[in-house]
């Protein structure tokens, strides 16, 4: 972690792989890129083995492009689809046991605060609906109750995608899946309301249809977590395999869901709101 760690030692440039040299020369380290400039710089995340047309992969791509300080960030993940792309990025990645991401993140954030008292080191958890709302439910909730200062992002594909399509707590009611042939009997968990009640200071629900908005939400969640407390983003990232969405229709599906149950929603406490208003005023002046 840190810029010095990323740079290539003098004399070794010609021995380094092309991708790495590009990453240092034309990448995101040490500068703030605009997500609208995607395709004109070397991205942090590399080729990954996720399915063609996967919108979880898309969300992760935008996530890495919108990190405020990639050189001072640690990402945590757990079993599930998301870790396939998260582990291919040039940002330190920790793979927890299933469901313990938020417990690991709590300890890590506390240790980093003691080790680097004068710097902000961001800790971000990205896990699926199974990792955060089913199996890791207790640890997720308790990290929020304790007001741990890190960001939790749930990439919700509404199914256990890579174990054959079992229903999860986040699958919508009545949906028929390969391993839920009778259709799901219960309602979808309202994760956003849970997060608000449990003590998150910034909560957002988003469908990946607008890269600029995703970037804004992710930046806000990370910045608010530095100063105030836990933050949570609930993102809809469809599973085109288990829900049989033709890859060409994946964006259309995300737009469609945005009109129904994934309307953009953003909530924050008054002090966080004040902080962002002040920050935006400063940005306008600059």
């Amino acid at each position, binding site marked *: 972690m840190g810029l010095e760690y990323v740079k290539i030692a003098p004399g070794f440039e010609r021995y380094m792989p092309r991708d790495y040299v590009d990453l240092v020369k034309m990448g995101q380290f040490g500068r703030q890129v605009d997500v609208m400039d995607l395709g004109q710089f070397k991205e942090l*995340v590399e080729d990954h083995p996720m399915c*063609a047309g996967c919108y979880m992969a*898309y969300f992760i791509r935008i996530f890495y492009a919108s990190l405020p300080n990639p050189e001072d960030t640690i990402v945590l993940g757990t079993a599930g689809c998301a870790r396939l792309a998260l582990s291919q990025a040039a940002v330190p990645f920790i793979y927890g046991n299933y469901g313990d991401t938020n417990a690991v993140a709590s300890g890590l954030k506390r240790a980093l605060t003691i080790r680097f008292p004068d710097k902000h080191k961001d800790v971000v958890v990205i896990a699926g609906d199974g990792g955060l709302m089913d199996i890791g439910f207790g640890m997720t909730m308790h990290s929020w109750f304790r007001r741990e200062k890190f960001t939790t992002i749930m990439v919700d594909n509404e199914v256990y995608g890579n174990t054959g399509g079992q229903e999860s707590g986040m699958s919508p009611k009545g949906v028929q899946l390969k391993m839920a042939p009778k259709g799901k009997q219960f309602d979808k968990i309202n994760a956003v309301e849970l997060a608000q009640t449990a003590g998150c200071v910034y909560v957002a629900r988003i469908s990946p249809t607008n890269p600029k908005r995703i970037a804004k939400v992710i930046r806000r969640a990370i910045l608010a977590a530095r100063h105030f407390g836990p933050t949570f983003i609930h993102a809809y990232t469809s599973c085109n395999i288990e829900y049989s969405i033709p890859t060409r229709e994946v964006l259309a599906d995300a737009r469609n869901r945005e009109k129904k149950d994934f309307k953009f929603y953003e909530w924050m406490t008054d002090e966080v709101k004040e902080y962002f208003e002040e920050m935006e005023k400063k940005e306008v002046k600059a």
Partner: protein
Amino acid sequence: MYFVAKVKEDECAKYNCKQCVLFCPEPNCINFLEKKSTAWVWPDKCKGCEICVYVCSDLLKRNCIEMVMVQAGD
């Protein structure tokens, strides 16, 4: 033999829109060349999902991207 996206560069250069670049799930797969103001596809990275075609043809009605068959080693 597999399908990848291919940008019709002459057509694309008319618009300077970049929307396909912003909606592709693969990192650095569709890139943008500012000099010619056109998008271009890195065929090795393309998985052929056609989301860019949906954005360009169905949403924007510009029809600048087509799917082509390539051989390994092309």
